[in-house]
């Protein structure tokens, strides 16, 4: 009886505390006293910190913060005021509900003026929140946000596609074909969650470029790829390039060795989080030659990048490596994402002459030319997307050799009509 009484009191007190929290957190954080020094612009990063995409989400955080610290040393100027960025990260769990909640928290509780670095599945809910609040959203296109899909420039005027994932996949395939000109067929692997208008779009581009391919769709959480590997073999594929997560291509790499297809190349359209994971999960032999995206801008051959940004990126690598006691692997997946987005954002604000007017900033972005960590690019896509809000990035592939990733090939991106 006494125990129950204790629990009663505990639970009632907890309930009261939580309600107080709910109300207290509801109040906007008290306006900070105006500081002397650079004005801080808060940028929100809704990203996957939990769930299957978590490795990619967590991998970049240290690098992003280091890059922003470097950037803030100079900041950017409008008139006589200097501006700095501050990054606030919230887990969006890669789910639509999580995305909406993360976006709402970043915009309304944390006061972010822009959301950037976004790449997870939940574009529709995040953009619903950001566009309603007139907050700029720098994101990838993803499966939903394609022409004819979810994206509509009229209802979502504050979205910028700074990483066009479909054009990216095409560039990657072109780079693969450059590396293996005698390839037979590319096997495309994705979970059936991805099936839809986005992939149809990619298929059309692949057909137009003359690339031979074969699709397989598996139910999410599949671990046994024997049936799919069998079907790829029957279709004559010898390169398996996955669009989705990292577990499925790792398993395909392992299982294709076990089934006797040692000559196939397997990879994913995403950067390597850490080759050690692949070596551990696939096995050393099976992981050799594993393909992935490579954003190492100091090794680009076809795309020219501003040397200032190359130096910054290399310094960030050093900073993070030092912070981790010299044990960090050279991760490059972050380079084409948030830093590019922030460079576009800051340059657009400079052009527009304001940090507070989203319409003016978007006007400066549309069709504008921007210099980023992955090259100089003019926003395009007026015909395809209805508005020139798409930035470009090169397709660059690397493969695991030994315990490291090594540059393989590259294909510069053509402007999107």
């Amino acid at each position, binding site marked *: 009886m006494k125990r129950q009484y204790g629990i009663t009191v505990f639970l009632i007190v907890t309930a009261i505390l939580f309600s107080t929290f709910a*109300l207290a957190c509801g109040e906007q954080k008290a306006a900070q006293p105006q500081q002397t020094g650079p004005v801080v612009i808060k940028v929100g990063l809704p990203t996957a910190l939990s769930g299957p995409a978590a490795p990619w989400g967590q991998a970049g955080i240290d690098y992003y913060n280091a890059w922003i610290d470097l950037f803030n040393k100079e900041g950017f100027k409008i008139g006589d005021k200097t501006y700095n960025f501050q990054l606030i990260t919230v887990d969006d769990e890669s789910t*639509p509900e999580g995305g909406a*909640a993360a976006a709402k928290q970043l915009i309304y509780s944390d006061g972010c003026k822009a959301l950037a670095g976004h790449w997870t599945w939940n574009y529709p809910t995040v953009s619903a929140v950001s566009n309603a609040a007139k907050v700029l959203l720098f994101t990838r296109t993803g499966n939903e946000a394609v022409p004819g899909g979810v994206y509509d420039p009229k209802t979502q005027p504050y979205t910028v596609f700074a990483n066009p994932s479909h054009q990216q996949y095409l560039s990657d395939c072109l780079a693969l074909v450059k590396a293996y000109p005698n390839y037979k067929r590319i096997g495309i692997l994705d979970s059936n969650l991805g099936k839809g208008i986005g992939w149809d779009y990619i298929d059309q581009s692949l057909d137009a470029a003359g690339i031979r391919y074969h699709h397989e769709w598996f139910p999410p959480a599949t671990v046994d790829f024997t049936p799919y590997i069998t079907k790829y073999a029957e279709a004559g594929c010898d390169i398996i390039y996955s669009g989705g997560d990292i577990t499925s291509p790792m398993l395909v790499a392992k299982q294709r060795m076990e089934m006797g297809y040692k000559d196939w190349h397997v990879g994913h359209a995403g950067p390597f989080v850490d080759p050690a994971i692949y070596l551990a999960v696939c096995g050393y032999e099976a992981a050799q030659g594993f393909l992935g995206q490579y954003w190492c801008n100091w090794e680009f051959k076809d795309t020219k990048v501003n040397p200032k940004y190359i130096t910054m990126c290399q310094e960030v690598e050093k900073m993070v490596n030092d912070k981790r006691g010299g044990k960090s692997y050279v991760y490059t997946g972050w380079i084409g994402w948030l830093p590019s987005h922030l460079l576009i954002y800051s340059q657009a604000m400079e052009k527009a002459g304001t940090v507070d007017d989203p319409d003016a900033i978007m006007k400066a972005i549309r069709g504008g030319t921007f210099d980023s960590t992955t090259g100089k690019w003019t926003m395009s896509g007026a015909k395809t997307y209805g508005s020139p809000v798409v930035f470009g990035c090169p397709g660059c592939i690397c493969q695991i050799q030994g315990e490291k990733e090594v540059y393989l090939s590259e294909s510069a991106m053509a402007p999107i009509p």
Partner: protein
Amino acid sequence: MKGLMDRLRLVDWRSWVPRIVAAVPVFFIILIPAFTTNEATLSMLILTGIWAIAAMGFSLILRTGQFSLGQAAFMAVGAYASAILTVKVGLPFWPSFILAGVISGLIALLVGLMVLRVGGIYFSIITLSLTEIIRIIAQQWEDVTRGARGLITAPPPTTDLGFFSINFAASSVPYYYFMLILVTLTGLVFWQIGRTRLGGTFFSMAANQILSEHQGVHLMKYRVIAFTLAGIFTGLAGSLYAHYLTVITPLVFGLWQSIQIMLMSIVGGIGSLVAGPIIGAVLLYVLGIYLSRLPVFGIQQLLFGAVVVLVLVFLPKGTGIIDLWPKFWRKVYHEVEEYEIPGEVKPDEE
């Protein structure tokens, strides 16, 4: 003045004081938007309310002795029905909303007729499978549901009430009141059922199936009624969900959500049809949201599971948090007892 004092003395304070104390937070709940219009907070409260309705549905079905793991499926049906009706068929919001509840109820009726005659654990496994089947249909039936990309819905239209207009697109406050009204409506309907003969019948079925059958209770009929009612209101909640988030995808309503709904209801206290599930939903959902803001991954799930385990182990069988309320008041009154007859066994002694 003396007459008033006399009248006050006649009032049964023991039953009124708890009610007044309970009414205070309810009063505050109604006024929350006056204190804060923070979108994140309102969003959390609105979603809590939606899950609470689903949990109430679970409790109603449980009243008839059946343990349904299919509540998430009916939320999905309601959400998709209303999304498809507004987006593809072009109906305005309010008819779609009502129809979503109707469709959800109809499907509950059909499914119930087929499935409720197998009771017990089989029923639970079937409802679990159905939840997954509905999720997979929503994912694969591209033409209608747009698969994993989901459907984009519009907020309810702005209604003009003369001196002010209710604008759903501008903020979450109108959704908050919509949610409150829906929760209250569901609560009232279920509470009334609980108090009437229908509720008594439900309870007798759960308590002793064989005996009630012998007494002429047609088990199947009442099970189906409960299941259908739960389906209707859960479908309405799903529809609100779809129009609040303005996006509905198949990933949101799966077997794990059904399990969470069940846990909310059990933690809250299944003896109560209304207050129990609401408290359970508030505790678990709000707890979940705050825990997910911590940088430690996994603590949310760990504490979620731990809270449920603690409630199940330490509270007597069949009670949940809501049952602590009367116990608390009995303790309070016990302590202000004016006199005790020596040697009398006190009722709360264990």
